[in-house]
């Protein structure tokens, strides 16, 4: 075992606060960012669960839920050899009137219902699509029932004064700004009172041999925006992340956790290094270079970071389960966990760099009494 690891193990009680601080920071960053991802992935559900390659709408649309109507005749602009199919898609906010008289903002989504529909979410099974073909029927997420003030399939309510009946339930499509209400184009058009010559989006599927990104710049119409599915999804999430206080406050909490972790780690490493000053001073007297001692302190910080990450990894599944049980949408993709680990290690090594100032105390002359 290296001298550094021996030192850490021998004085493990001294290093425990720093290890816990690192674990705390890593968990805070991972869980906050995971919740952030989970929360804002709800915004882009209609985009992520569609099969369209391109989303066409009016200019400067910042998010899928804040578009304005566009003319249906823009289909002609997309009549290009590389476009396979084009279809309209409606999405707009509506006022859901609960049976008890209360109101709730809901996001009405109208799409074609065919098996090859570009806009219908994948959770809409053929059976549900058949039910939605009946005018005035809608499908909602089971997790939103309470929010909508209804008990389940068969319940009725009003959206923008139009009576609707819940024909089925889906799972995993809970909305953020409001519950999603899925229906046919015709039902949506009625609820949203939209001009038949208009739509909110035009969805297109590219011929497979051409990448959607390749051709997006070709449609450089001043009054029209074209986004790839991935691009529009990211754009929608980033809008919510950057433009709403919620996202920033979650991020701020994660950064704060990181800073607190850095402070505790740095102070612990400083105190630990300062406690070894006499031993370091002897080595300095004997000509052992300062960089060698600095490497020791940095190696200590690295291993404290690794120990903290191991502790965090052990706690993460339990905490993730607690959060999920409480209904929060948590996403912990591998890149987030890897990024958190790198960030946390970087933080501990930076703390080690800060603790290096303690080596100035290693003055051999001070040992001569």
């Amino acid at each position: 075992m290296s001298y550094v690891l021996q030192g850490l193990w021998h004085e493990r009680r001294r290093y425990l606060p720093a290890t816990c601080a690192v674990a705390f920071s890593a968990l805070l960053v991972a869980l906050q960012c995971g919740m952030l991802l989970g929360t804002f992935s709800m915004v882009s559900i209609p985009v992520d669960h569609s099969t369209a390659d391109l989303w066409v709408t009016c200019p400067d649309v910042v998010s899928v839920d804040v578009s304005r109507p566009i003319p249906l005749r823009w289909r002609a602009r997309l009549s290009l050899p590389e476009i396979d199919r084009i279809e309209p898609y409606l999405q707009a906010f509506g006022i859901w009137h609960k049976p008890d008289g209360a109101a709730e903002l809901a996001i009405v989504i109208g799409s074609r219902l065919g098996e090859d529909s570009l806009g219908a979410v994948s959770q809409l099974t053929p059976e549900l699509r058949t039910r939605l073909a009946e005018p005035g029927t809608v499908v909602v997420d089971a997790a939103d029932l309470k929010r909508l003030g209804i008990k389940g399939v068969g319940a009725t309510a009003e959206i923008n004064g139009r009576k609707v009946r819940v024909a089925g339930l889906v799972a995993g499509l809970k909305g953020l700004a409001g519950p999603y209400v899925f229906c046919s184009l015709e039902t949506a058009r009625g609820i949203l009172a939209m001009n038949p010559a208009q739509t909110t989006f035009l969805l297109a599927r590219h011929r497979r041999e051409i990448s959607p990104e390749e051709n997006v710049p070709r449609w450089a119409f001043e009054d029209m925006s074209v986004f790839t599915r991935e691009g529009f999804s990211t754009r929608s999430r980033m809008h919510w992340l950057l433009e709403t206080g919620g996202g920033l406050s979650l991020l701020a909490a994660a950064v704060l956790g990181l800073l607190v972790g850095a402070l505790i780690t740095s102070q612990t490493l400083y105190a630990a290094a300062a406690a070894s000053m006499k031993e370091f001073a002897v080595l300095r007297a004997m000509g052992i270079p300062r960089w060698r001692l600095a490497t020791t302190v940095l190696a200590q910080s690295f291993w404290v970071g690794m120990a903290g990450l191991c502790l965090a990894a052990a706690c993460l599944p339990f905490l993730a389960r607690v959060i999920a049980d409480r209904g929060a949408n948590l996403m912990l993709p591998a890149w987030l966990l890897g990024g958190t680990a790198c960030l946390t290690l970087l933080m501990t090594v930076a703390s080690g760099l800060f603790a290096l100032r303690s080596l100035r105390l290693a003055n051999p002359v001070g040992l001569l009494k």
Partner: protein
Amino acid sequence: MLEPVVLNSEGIGQVFAEGVQSTTVFSDVSLRVRRGEFCLLMGVSGSGKSTLLAILSGLLRPTSGQVSVLGSDLWRLTEPEREEFRRKHFGFVFQGHNLFPALTAREQLEIVLRWGEGMPAAVARTRSDQVLAALGLAHRADRRPTELSGGEKQRVAIGRALVKRPAFCFADEPTRALDSKNADLVVRLFRETARRLRSTVLVITHDERMIPHVDRVFAIRDGRLHEWSRTAPAPAALRVRSCVDRSPLAPQVDQPCSEST
């Protein structure tokens, strides 16, 4: 045949300034030490012997004068050069052991060889074991400082200073707080080292028991360095009493020191 002079200081002076006040610790100190000599530096507390040792060992820059070690003017070297010089030629034993609590006796020595000399682990281990055996600590090589007695810890500290076979070993009160048996052993170790490795040993001490075993005794008094010739009566500067009759090493002394006045 006389051994060559390996340490030569000329006109060393040290003044500590604090605000407008300044204190002259000593001035115009010159001494020449030959290779393999075992020297004591004595004096009352505050006389400046630690300061002189720090200057001679390249740890503290003197206000005036020069220190030549092995032909190099120590205080004309750059800081990295002086650090490298200390790494190559100097070993130190300070008061209080200063051993790493997490490391075994063997590792306390190994760390000097591996970090300082870049020695491979196996070679460093062999060398460390040899030195520990010479110190009578072969059976304690795997013990940490908390498992060692005060005498054993001091021997490990000495081993750490000697393991790289330095040309010079500087020690500050190495027998302090040791019983007679351990003090005797420490003195013998320094004596043997000086002879076997041809190392020059310079020890600060108040311990009169060491006097009979050394080659030369220096003392600082009133800012001046005095040397006590072993063939002459001890100078008052030493302010030490004869210890020969009380020292277990007394029979080895060829010239007993008398009561100084």
